[in-house]
């Protein structure tokens, strides 16, 4: 009866979660895609520009260049001396920053709404007129080397994860770290950053997202004024991603200066982009939710609480990637529990679903969390801009986010069972045991 109540309520909620916030979409003649999301709740605006250029696009001789270029975008341009971009933004009350991921590089500026014209002019300036001076490049490279020391080299678990990724995603651009391999990073040259900028920072490879207290009528003329005169440019050809055949089971032991061991398992599975049938993506999403969608889901209930094997454990599916998807399990054991036992426990959880489809109640709980999450996400203008931009660089229609819950509602428990059976198989996985240096 409880399940029925939830199912009915979910239907009602689905309607309210899609309460309309107008989203406008247009393209300039030079190929720049523009998305404008109107949300007039507060007098703020977020401007983001997304480039379909991340570390997966890097050749082996230039790992780290996507991220280093991101740093250079805050330095020097035709009209702005080093640091001036940030100081102007600050002077007008802005928050600005950027991030580089495997799949994309994205820049954001957040302001009180009247600052929109300035935000667009500043964004266009560095897209059109970036200057990478040798001396400035080398100083910034030093900063990025510090960033690497801080984020990776001095964190044994981050170092372990970097080594694990190299084996877990073989033969793909996801196998090298976003920040770059340490010794290669140190040797990057300014011409490599210039080449990256010329190859990928062109209008046809970018999506501009404007979200907040703004209308299309306000935004469009400004976008045309500042971005319309850019030449279209060309990006190098890149192959469409396809589903990789299984790479075979890979196992590694990493001895590092950790005090607490850790277990990593990663399965190479389809993403929305590489799945033959999108239903596979939705079934894997539900599988991720059933396993670890919250404190009531199976990993927490059975492994952390019930059997008390792990001090912390997690499982999750990431199917929104330009390449293939990943299904990841991580855990750190309680004292006296071996990594083999932890591994067996994860396998046991997968096997249970492979043998017996999950219950409707569990499925409904995952859907409730997704639906509520769609409402909560609207609380942040930045969060909305993130969602629009991310889908756009993945080549996915932004409307998909609004249909996400409908598609999840169609997934049957048997499809979840089949997803576990078909995809979470040994020949598709890599396993790492991270143990303290002195231990065998």
């Amino acid at each position, binding site marked *: 009866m409880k399940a029925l109540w939830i199912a009915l309520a979910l239907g009602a909620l689905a309607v309210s979660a899609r309460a309309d916030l107008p989203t406008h979409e247009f393209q300039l003649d030079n190929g720049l895609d523009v998305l404008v999301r109107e949300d007039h709740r507060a007098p703020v605006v977020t401007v983001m520009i997304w480039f379909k250029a991340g570390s997966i696009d890097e050749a082996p001789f230039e790992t780290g260049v996507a991220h280093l270029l991101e740093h250079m975008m805050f330095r020097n341009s035709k009209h702005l001396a080093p640091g001036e971009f940030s100081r102007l933004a600050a002077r007008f009350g802005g928050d600005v920053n950027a991030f580089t991921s495997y799949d994309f590089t994205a820049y954001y500026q957040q302001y009180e709404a*009247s600052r929109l014209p300035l935000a667009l002019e500043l964004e266009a300036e560095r897209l059109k007129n970036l200057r990478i001076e040798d001396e400035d490049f080398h100083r910034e490279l030093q900063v990025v080397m*510090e960033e690497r020391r801080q984020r990776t080299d001095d964190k044994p678990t981050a170092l372990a994860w970097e080594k694990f990724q190299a084996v877990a995603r073989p033969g793909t651009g996801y196998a090298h770290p976003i920040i770059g391999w340490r010794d290669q990073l140190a040797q990057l040259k300014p011409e490599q950053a210039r080449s990256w900028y010329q190859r990928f920072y062109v209008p046809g490879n970018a999506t501009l997202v404007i979200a907040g207290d703004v209308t299309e009528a306000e935004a469009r003329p400004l976008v045309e004024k500042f971005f319309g005169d850019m030449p279209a440019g060309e990006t190098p050809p890149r192959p469409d991603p396809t589903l990789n055949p299984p790479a075979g089971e890979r196992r590694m032991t990493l001895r590092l200066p950790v005090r607490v061991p850790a277990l990593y398992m990663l399965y190479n599975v389809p993403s929305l982009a590489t799945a033959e049938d999108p239903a596979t993506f939705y079934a894997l999403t539900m599988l991720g939710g059933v396993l670890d969608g919250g404190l009531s889901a199976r990993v927490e209930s059975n492994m952390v609480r019930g059997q008390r094997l792990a001090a912390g454990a997690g499982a999750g599916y990431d199917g929104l990637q330009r390449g293939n998807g990943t299904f990841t399990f991580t855990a750190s054991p309680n004292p006296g529990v071996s990594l083999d036992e932890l591994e067996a426990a994860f396998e046991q959880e997968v096997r249970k679903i492979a043998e017996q489809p999950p219950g409707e109640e569990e499925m409904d709980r995952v859907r409730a969390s997704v639906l509520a999450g769609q409402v909560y996400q609207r609380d942040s203008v930045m969060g909305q801009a993130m969602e629009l931009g991310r889908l756009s660089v993945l080549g996915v229609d932004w409307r998909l986010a609004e249909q996400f819950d409908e598609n999840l509602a169609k997934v049957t428990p048997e499809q979840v069972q089949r997803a576990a059976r078909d995809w979470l198989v040994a020949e598709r996985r890599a396993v790492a045991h991270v143990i303290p240096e002195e231990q065998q």
Partner: protein
Amino acid sequence: MMMTAQSPLKILAAAACALALAGCASFPTTAGKVSKAEPAAPELAIQSWQTDQGAKVLFVPSEALPMLDVRLVMHAGGARDGDQPGLASLTSALIGEGAEGLSVDDIARGFEDRGAHFSTGSYQDMGVVSLRTLSKPEWRDDAVDLLARVVGRPTFPQDALDRLRTRAMQGLKMEKQVPGPQVDKAFQRAVFGDHPYGHADSGTLESLPGITREDLRRFHERYYAAGNTVIALVGDVSREQAEAIAAELSAALPDGGPAPDLPRAKKAAERVVEHLTFPSNQTHILIGGQATWRGNPDHAALYVGNYILGGGGFASLLTQEVREKHGYVYGVSSFFQPMAAGGPFRLQLQTANDNADQALGVTMGLLRDFIANGPTQEQLDNAKANILGRRALETADNSDIIGQLGAIGFYDLPLDYLQRFNRQVKAVTVADIREAFQRALDADRLAIVSIGPEAPRLPQGGKDETQGQDQ
């Protein structure tokens, strides 16, 4: 324009000139028009009342989204640990692990069946319990009822205590793998010593094993009392509904009044220098001391001054000098953290071991110079433009607003605190900042705590140190 050696001051001057001359061909062409627009600074219309049991309620209605945030904030942070470090934090972690008639599984399912998010947190001053739920009654009512039971009548099951204690101890061991948390704790000890702010609120490998269910029960009974609690509400409910929710939550809490005031933290009589030897690639350096408190009349001047010095991200003096000019660091920043009975100033940086001496020298020079001379008028004008120009961003989301309400209620600030703060920022002068910094900080008595393979060499004070700023 391309000279990388251009000093920050000249760049600021160039930017200001561009603003003044907007309309001519200067860049950015939009600056003139944009600077004429007065940035909106929405005022929060906060409603406030007391429950029958003495909890203070702050409420901001917001109909835009069908959701509700509820936050309970108690004087129940690590400062109340007494001689059992980790007691507050374990008590907080066990809220939600069992309540009268409900197992941990019942509670987890109860929230998650409804798409509600429940969480607890423990800080030095505060214990915090938060709920985010959809606001339609069919989702909200059960979630609020469950929250009332969970926070009002926790059972602190022994198996949950054992499990979360183990998790906490594993976490403490993991902290020893990395430099950051170790130097943080040493800094806290160096600055606050035996004061209740002086110990790590996550507890220690020695203290955690001794904590019993009875300790948790007593801590909850005393510090999760209604009279010691602020209830903040933001979202799509009416005043009447908000009153009913606050009344239900307040009635569920133990009876009792406010916790006694903590003793005021004192400034160090002399400089503490401490180094932890650790085989890291970077040396982490923390500089600071007891400097402020909630209610300090210098608060606005310290806030604005620190924005200029090290709080303003890319625009700050520390970032311009230590990162952009010298390339010594990825991150360098500073802040004042005013709390009920004190509050540190803290300046932090991480740098390659080989650069540690120089980075510390440049940083100390800059800090010493700033305390002695304060900012320039231009730096102050730009800082005010930022702080006043970004007010809209700070109250845009319900999650921003609930945080503001929690702090305003907890620290007994006036309901129009944000507006008052705006006015104080507008009035701050260069002299105010200089004097406030000199009252708060004595460069010769600030603690310097570091971690890395070797202790960085301390600058010799006086002239040698100031080279960073004037070059």
